[in-house]
Every structure is written in structure tokens, then in C-alpha cells.
């Protein structure tokens, strides 16, 4: 593949705050609420924020997403001080920082990084690694000397650096892994800015400042306390009663309004598009959803712009989007998006076309069941909205709600006509967001086997220039949402974090899995 110049990236200690007029103050304990508890302590095998929020501060990763970048798409080094990429794009070499120590005092070397990544990419038999498939491109991980880690790839992948910045790739201690691969499921030993103090089940998690953290002067906080509260009204109450500073997942618009009303300028609200979206999966194996006219009618019926305005008042959704989160580098600009089916500004015209298509396909007045998940936000409001919108083109839709444990098996079995599908990513990157639409993906519940789409995906993944990549992505999006309508995007989730104004140094990103190490956070007094 013809190629780009090799890059030499200079490390920034991810510390220079973008708009820091105030000087960070040391001290204080950050108290935050977490809606669920970690089922185990090993990030390589979990995927819930209930693990990340209380535990990420104990660990470092090789690369991380710039905590001050609102789009959450810029990779910077965490343990990596600098890196070089070979000309052919197949070798990534990282130089590790000096003087990094585990919480037990032992030094971190490249052996630890290699052992951790081997566990993630090449797990031993019997070990579960959820992200194994994301690193199919890696051939081998090498540790030629104590300060150097090298990744050799099978083919060039422009998103690799960002992919490595996954918040789940905690670096564990090689010696411990060698003795017991499972140790980390129940124990904590990392190099992060906070050391582990205690976890009281059903109650709280406490972390304390790591005095030997490699980034001198940080963390600013003396410690943190995570309170586990599953009820969202209790979480809001905690912030409102000033018993907690922040909740890192997101609150609803109603919660935000009540907090702002109650606390005035003691509350700061940060919001951003969220890297989560609900899509509509249509079972391509069941009539009449094998007919693309019917699928097209379903998307034409939806007045996204009206919904964006109104649903955003009562639900955690907002932006009208295509296949990428609006505002990120590869997102389609709104004018372009408006050309796709279902994104037009004239809803009456769209709906007239929908009715026509349904009639042509012999599906006028069609009745079907829409299977949805029993989660109050935003599944249920979106379900209500969808049924109403489909009613406007004469469709007679009944909703069936399944609780989570029944919901996944149902999707996998393909036991549905139309169902709510979902995607939550930790980094906005087409290589991470799009594989589920490919023919061979386990997550392609609608079973749309489209070779053209597969082809377009490969093209964009291997594109070397941003403009070329964008072209392929537009073509992908058009085919997915307009020509074939294999899937239907509803609205992008919207992340709203109202927090105590005392909390500084934390920037919201589209993902609730990012920016949780808390090293840059400080409290005013």
C-alpha cells in the first residue's frame, strides 16, 4: 500500500488544561455516584461502566484518549511517552515512561505491558477476553528492552493508535499474571493515580491518592469515594443534596432541569452527543421486511427533526445522526445527511412516499410487533415515539417489552420482526462502530448479508488519507441507510452531566467509558 510519512509523535503529558485560567488546587475527596457495581475487577473481561467508573483510577493504559478533547477522538500517551510508526504502517514502537511504579512499589517495565496485551489479544485457553476480536490485526507484541514495546501488525490500520487507547486495556503486572491469570478478577494492583482502599459491596468504593504517581504533582485529589446507587432518583437526590459531586454516566433532561432549578450556579452542566445510539433492526429473513421498500417506508415515516426538538426535553436523545456521532471527524454534515431517506426536511413528502412504497409492496396497513428492551431511558420513550410515527403511515404496531436477560437471546435467535438494536462505543471510530453491519458479524441481528457494504467497509478501513476515507464512509452510509435500508438510526443519545461547580478539570466526552482516571480533576473550595 502506498504510504504516508512515518510519524513521530511527541508526548504531551496530558496535563495542560485547554482553558485553565484557574490554578488547580490540591486536596479534597471527590464523591460520585455509580448506578451499578462491578461484577468482577478485570477490565479485560467486562464491559460495564460499573467497573470503569470506580476502578479506572487505579490503572494506567498504554495510550489513552485525550481527557481534554471534547470529541474524544485524540489519542495521547498514558504510559507511552513517545511512539513511532514504521513507513509501511505495520510496526508501532512505543517508548515507556521512566519511573512508573505499581502500587506495591515494583517498577513497571515493558514486560508488564506485553503480558497485559498478550492476555487481551492472545488469551490462554479458558480465559475470556472481550476485545480479542478488535485486535485481529496484531500479529505479535514484543518487549525488546524494558522501556520499549513493539506491536507488529498484519496489515496497516489507520485507527490502530486510537484503538489502543481503549479504556479497558489496563496494564497489569506480568509477575502476577504469570502466577495466576485470574488474580485480577478479584484483586487490584495497578499503576494508576489512585490506590485501592476498600470496596464495601452494595455501598461504596474508596480510592486514595497515589503518592508515587509518575505524573508529579498529580493527582490533585486526596482521594475519591464512589457510592453505588441503582435508583436514578436517589442519584439525583445525592447530587442535589450536595452529598455527591457528580455522576459520570448521564442524567435525564428532567433531572438536569430540577438540579439547575434547585442549585442555581452551584451546578455546572456539561453536555455532549453520546457515543450510543439505538437502531432499528429489521429481520431480513421475515416477510415483508425482506423487501427494501417496506424497510424504506419505516425510515421515511420518522420525523427526526421534530423528535430531536421534543424528545430531547424528556429523554436522553437529541442529535439527528447517521453512522457517526455528530461533531466527530468522520460525521456527515447535516446538509449531506438531509439527502438520505428519512432525513429529509419535508416530512409530509417523506410520509407520502412511505405510503406509496407500502402500497406497492402490498404491505398497506401492515401489522407487526416491535420488540423493545425494558429500560426507561431512552428505550421506552423512543418506543412510544416510533409506534406513533409508524401509525402516521398507517402501520399498526404493537410493542413487546423484554427485560434485558430475555432481550439478548431474542436478538441472537432472530426471534423478531422488528426490534430495537443498540450500539455503545467507547471511542468514536468507524472501524469500531461499523463492523456490526457486516455480513459475518455476530451483532448483525437483522441478518443483512450485503457484500457491497462489506467491501466499502474494507475500503474505508484501509484508506490512507482522510478525504478518501470520508468518501468511502459516505458511500457506506448511503447504502446502509438509504439504498438498502439495512438498519434505521433513531436519534443519537445525548449525554448530560450536571455536576457540582466545585469539580474542575473534567471534560465531557461522547463516551461514558472515557476520562475516568480522575488524575486531572480537582475541587475548588
Amino acid at each position: 500500500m502506498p504510504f504516508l510519512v512515518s510519524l513521530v509523535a511527541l508526548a504531551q503529558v496530558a496535563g495542560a488544561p485547554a482553558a485553565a485560567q484557574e490554578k488547580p488546587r490540591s486536596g479534597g475527596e471527590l464523591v460520585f455516584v455509580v448506578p451499578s457495581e462491578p461484577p468482577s475487577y478485570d477490565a479485560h473481561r467486562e464491559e460495564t461502566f460499573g467497573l470503569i467508573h470506580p476502578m479506572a483510577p487505579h490503572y494506567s493504559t498504554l495510550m489513552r484518549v485525550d481527557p481534554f478533547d471534547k470529541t474524544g477522538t485524540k489519542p495521547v500517551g498514558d504510559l507511552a511517552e513517545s511512539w513511532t510508526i514504521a513507513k509501511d504502517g505495520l510496526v508501532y514502537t512505543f517508548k515507556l515512561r521512566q519511573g512508573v511504579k505499581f502500587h506495591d512499589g515494583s517498577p513497571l517495565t515493558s514486560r508488564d505491558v506485553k503480558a497485559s496485551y498478550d492476555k487481551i489479544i492472545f488469551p490462554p485457553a479458558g480465559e475470556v477476553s472481550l476485545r480479542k476480536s478488535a485486535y485481529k490485526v496484531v500479529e505479535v507484541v514484543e518487549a525488546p528492552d524494558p522501556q520499549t514495546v513493539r506491536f507488529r501488525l498484519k496489515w496497516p490500520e489507520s485507527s490502530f493508535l486510537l484503538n489502543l487507547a481503549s479504556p479497558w486495556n489496563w496494564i497489569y503486572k506480568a509477575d502476577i499474571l504469570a502466577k495466576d491469570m485470574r488474580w485480577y478478577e478479584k484483586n487490584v494492583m495497578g499503576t494508576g493515580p489512585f490506590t485501592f482502599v476498600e470496596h464495601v459491596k452494595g455501598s461504596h468504593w474508596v480510592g486514595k491518592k497515589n503518592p508515587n504517581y509518575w505524573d508529579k504533582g498529580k493527582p490533585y485529589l486526596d482521594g475519591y469515594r464512589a457510592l453505588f446507587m441503582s435508583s436514578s432518583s436517589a442519584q439525583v437526590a445525592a447530587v442535589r443534596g450536595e452529598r455527591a459531586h457528580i455522576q459520570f454516566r448521564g442524567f435525564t433532561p428532567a433531572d438536569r432541569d430540577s438540579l439547575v432549578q434547585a442549585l442555581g450556579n452551584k451546578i455546572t452542566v456539561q453536555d455532549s452527543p453520546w457515543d450510543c445510539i439505538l437502531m432499528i433492526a429489521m429481520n431480513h429473513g421475515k416477510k415483508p421486511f425482506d423487501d427494501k421498500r417496506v424497510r424504506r417506508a419505516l425510515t421515511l415515516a420518522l420525523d427526526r427533526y421534530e423528535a430531536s426538538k421534543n424528545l430531547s426535553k424528556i429523554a436522553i436523545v437529541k442529535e439527528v445522526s447517521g453512522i457517526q456521532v455528530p461533531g466527530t471527524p468522520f460525521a456527515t454534515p447535516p446538509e449531506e445527511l438531509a439527502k438520505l431517506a428519512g432525513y429529509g426536511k419535508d416530512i409530509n413528502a417523506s410520509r407520502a412516499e412511505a405510503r406509496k412504497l407500502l402500497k406497492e409492496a402490498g404491505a398497506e396497513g401492515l401489522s407487526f410487533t416491535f420488540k423493545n428492551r425494558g429500560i426507561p431511558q431512552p428505550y421506552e420513550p423512543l418506543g412510544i415515539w416510533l409506534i406513533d410515527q409508524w401509525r402516521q403511515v398507517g402501520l399498526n404496531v404493537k410493542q413487546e417489552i423484554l427485560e434485558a436477560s430475555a432481550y439478548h437471546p431474542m436478538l441472537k435467535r432472530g426471534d423478531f420482526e422488528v426490534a430495537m438494536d443498540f450500539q455503545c462505543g467507547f471511542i468514536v471510530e468507524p472501524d469500531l462502530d461499523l463492523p456490526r453491519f457486516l455480513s459475518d458479524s455476530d451483532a448483525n441481528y437483522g441478518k443483512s448479508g450485503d457484500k457491497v457494504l462489506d467491501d466499502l467497509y474494507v475500503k474505508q478501513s484501509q484508506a490512507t488519507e482522510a478525504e478518501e476515507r470520508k468518501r468511502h464512509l459516505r458511500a457506506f452510509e448511503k447504502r446502509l441507510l438509504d439504498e438498502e435500508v439495512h438498519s434505521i438510526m433513531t436519534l443519537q443519545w445525548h449525554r448530560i452531566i450536571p455536576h457540582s461547580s466545585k469539580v474542575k478539570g473534567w471534560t465531557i466526552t461522547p463516551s461514558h467509558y472515557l476520562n475516568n482516571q480522575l488524575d486531572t480533576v480537582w475541587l475548588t473550595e
Partner: protein
Amino acid sequence: MAINVPVEIATTEAVPREPRARWLSAVVGFTRRRTLGAVGAGVVVLMLLVAALAPVIAPYDPVTVDFGAMLAAPNAKHWLGTDAFGRDVLSRLIYGSRTALLVGFGSALLGATVGAILGVGSAYFGGRIDLYLQRLMDVFLAFPLIILALAIVAILGNNLQNLIMAITIPMIPRCALVIRSSALAIREMPYVDAARAAGFKHGRIILRHMLPNVMAPYLIMLTAFLGQAILLEASLSFLGLGVQEPTAAWGLMLRGAAVEFAETAPWMAVFPGLAISLAVFAFNLFGDSLRDALDPKLRTL
């Protein structure tokens, strides 16, 4: 075995009068003397009418989304305000009565009837059958209600019929036990023995002699269950099991947006709760007075 609801301790009554006349006259005298009960009955009848005439009296369609009128406070156009989707609360309450009554009557009738049959059968046949049935009832009685409901819904799917089943099943053992203890008392009665000696078949004895005598506790349990069923439906819908959006159901109306917006739009949470309370209140008033009227010992007042 300890007994739940209205209590039947072994009576020391002498030979009772003919069963049927007793409860008929009680019902007649009921309305005259028990005003509270009559009020309860009146409300129940009103509810039935509202449910039946819903399409006629409801001002709006309960499922039409109207974003222009989101979260509106009670006003001239929407007497009880609107919810987060601009749907008229009053209309949803009216249609919700259908779900409440359907679930309420459905589960209560089913539960009480099956329970009564099991109770009478258990008492009449006695011996091994009684022993095994009792143990089975014990097991279901001791089993936590909410888990049973969750499990049933998870296995069979989340819809109205299964909700009714989930509510009916815990009611059966409770009814069976109470009916059984009544039936036991009857079984000891001289005329039952006489009937058996005369060679009458089981079925006839049960139908002619035992069932009429358990009518009183049966009706009492039925009305007690009615209220409980509606409450249970509310709780389960609140948890997300059972009736689904966009169908109107009182418990469902309390879920989600109602709690979230409770401060800024309290009418969404207040009115469905009031509706539930009123319905259960009415059923209980009625059942209360019915029990007062049917309980043989209190009749003498």
C-alpha cells in the same frame, strides 16, 4: 395451618339454618344497612360504566402523541393535564380503567374460583389428597410473590394474559386455605353425613351442600382479591412487567416520566395514583361491608 384474611375459627354454632336463604337475605338487607358498602358498590359500578363507555366519554385518543402539548398543566383543553408525550391524562385514566378492571376481575375470579375448587375438594376428599394439596399450597404460599411474577413473565413473555396469570397464581393457595377451613366445618355437619349415607354422589353433595356454604367466604375473598389484583398490577406495571406502552394502564402511567417530572409536572404522578387508590378503596369498602353482612355471627345485630 394458620389462616390469612377474614378469619374462620371453628364455630360453636348449633344446627344451622338452610344455607341458601341465609345469604340471599343478607344481600338484600345489605344495601339498606351498610351505607359505606353501598357507596363502594356504587363507585365500582361507575368504574364499570366508565370502562365500558370509554370510547364515548374520553375527550382524546389515549395514544396519540402531541408534542405541541407536552407536559401541560391541567387546563381547559386537558382537564387533568398531559403527559411527557402530550397525551391527555384524563383520557388515559379512562382507558386505563379497562386494563385495571380486566386484570382485577380476571385474576380475582380465576384465583378465587380455582382456589375455592381446590379448597372444597381438599376438604371433602380429605386423607392423602388433602395432605398433598395442602403441602402444594404451602409451597406456593411461602414462595415470594414478586419472584413468581418475574419468573412467569420472563418465561412466558410480557403481555396482559401472562400478567393476569402472574397475579392469579399467588391468590389460589390463599383462597384454597380459607375455603378449605370453611368447607371442613361443613363437612362435619350432620346433613352431609346423612347425604352420604343415603348414597348421593360426591358431585351432588359438593354442589348442593358444600358450595353454597362457602359462598360467603368465596365472595369475601373475591372482593378482597379484586383490590389486591389492581394494586399488584400497578406494582408490576411500575416495574415494567405486564402491560406495555402505548396502552393506557394506571400502574404504567406511574412509570418513568411521571416520577422524573414529579416536581415540575406532578399531575402525571398524582392522578393515576388517585385512580388506583379510589378503585381499590371502593372494592374494599364493598368487600368490607359484604363481609360484615355475610358473617353469620354478626348478623344478629
